[in-house]
């Protein structure tokens, strides 16, 4: 028995088509016969091809019984795949890595001008001379053709907004502080900037808070250099906020002063 079972199984698998045909074939004659009397009421059933119509009433019974598990298996398979996709989707959203925009939005007190003022964030032409900005310090908009050097430069005097905004476009985070910020806090901020390209720092008189951080389209104002949101802001937005990936921070204006600087004069070497 145990030896014949596999053979029995395999023969069973090959058997059904034959059995099907057999039952279908067996079904036909009776169906045809059975149909003839009913059809015979009209035309006596003298046509052999006329059996096509009578077949239908009976075959659906067998077919529907036989096929019903096929679709169920198919739907189950599709359901499993869908469930897997949904399951993974839930994982990706809940547990998976967040992108930098989500991280930025998660910082409490951040101003997201990419959401609140998309027009401002799309305004980025090169203009010479001084430019009026709606935000203090500015976070986006038209700017000077030259950018402020943002190779972790710590400027000890004010820099031009028009050059600084261009650095933001390159992906820099600009740290500004009110000149009355205690020296130890200025040093603490400088240590986060120095040697870290795509950051720069400068004093900014008249700030409504002691410290203000800018990236293209984002701003965060805090009271203290030890506020952990300072690091969160830099981590989320440094380089990520760039509108021009691959463009660097060197080769920019290194001078201070609030008058925007055009292209720097190059020494005539040769």
């Amino acid at each position, binding site marked *: 028995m145990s030896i014949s079972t596999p053979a029995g199984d395999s023969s069973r698998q090959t058997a059904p088509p034959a059995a099907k045909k057999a039952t279908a074939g067996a079904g036909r004659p009776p169906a045809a016969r059975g149909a003839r009397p009913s059809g015979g009421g009209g035309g006596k059933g003298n046509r052999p091809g006329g059996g096509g119509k009578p077949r239908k009433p009976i075959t659906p019974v067998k077919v529907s019984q036989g*096929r019903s*598990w096929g679709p169920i298996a198919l739907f189950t398979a599709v359901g*499993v795949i869908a469930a897997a996709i949904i399951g993974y989707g839930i*994982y990706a959203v809940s547990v998976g890595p967040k992108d930098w925009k989500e991280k930025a939005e998660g910082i409490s007190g951040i101003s997201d001008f990419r959401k609140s003022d998309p027009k401002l964030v799309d305004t980025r032409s090169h203009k010479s001379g001084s430019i009026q900005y709606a935000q203090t310090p500015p976070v986006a908009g038209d700017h000077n053709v030259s950018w402020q050097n943002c190779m972790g430069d710590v400027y000890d005097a004010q820099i031009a907004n028009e050059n600084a905004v261009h650095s933001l476009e390159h992906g820099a985070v600009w740290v500004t502080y009110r000149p009355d910020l205690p020296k130890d806090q200025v040093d603490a901020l400088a240590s986060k900037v120095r*040697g*870290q390209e795509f950051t720069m720092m400068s004093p900014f008189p008249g700030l409504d808070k002691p410290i203000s951080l800018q990236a293209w389209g984002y701003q965060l104002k805090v009271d203290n250099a030890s506020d952990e949101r300072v690091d969160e802001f830099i981590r989320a937005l440094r380089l990520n906020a760039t509108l021009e990936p691959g463009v660097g921070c060197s080769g920019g204006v290194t001078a201070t002063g609030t008058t925007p600087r055009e292209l720097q004069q190059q020494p005539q070497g040769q």
Partner: protein
Amino acid sequence: MSTTYDDAAVAVSSVSAPPRRRALLVTSAVVAAVLVVIAAFGAGWFAQSRNHPGEDSVEAGFARDMSSHHAQAVEMSMLALDKSTQPDLRLLAGESAQAQQAQIGMMQTWLRDWHLGPTGHRPQMSWMTDGASLMQNGLMPGMASAADMTKLRNATGHDFDLLFLRLMQQHHLGGIHMVEGVLAETHETDVVWLAQSMANNQRAELEFIQQILTKIGA
């Protein structure tokens, strides 16, 4: 597949216990579905967490810090291309700027591929054994200070050439130190490949720098 189910259906109709058979089939289908969901979920999680270096890995720390380190070499080399009249030095500067900027792109691409940001939450050099002790005045090994950079921008002629070569020498030596640090700890194929080529390039450039220094009478 469908034929087996057909058989089952035929068997079911003839064996006279259809509810039990159906219950068995439904149960096994549900069990199979659950197993597939778990397998897919597990595979996704595994792929996400194990295949790439993580947030605090040596590789991620190296990619971030070496990008910053390279960026300063590019800045100095671009100054040299602007200011120096020494053909050898200009050749070195051009080669160095191109190679290092391209390598920054490779390292930033790794971070993107690993689903990591360009900025980590740990201090510079903390990925390397004794890395914190290598920091000098808050700068990574070999990095020129802000004062050095100002001096370099203001220097001209022979003074510029000398200062550039000395700063670049220091920069390369520090860079090779960092490269050795990552090579000691990583088995990530691309990282090993790029780090080794950095060490080779920068050692060759150090020889070249020495030749130019001798030539210009340093």
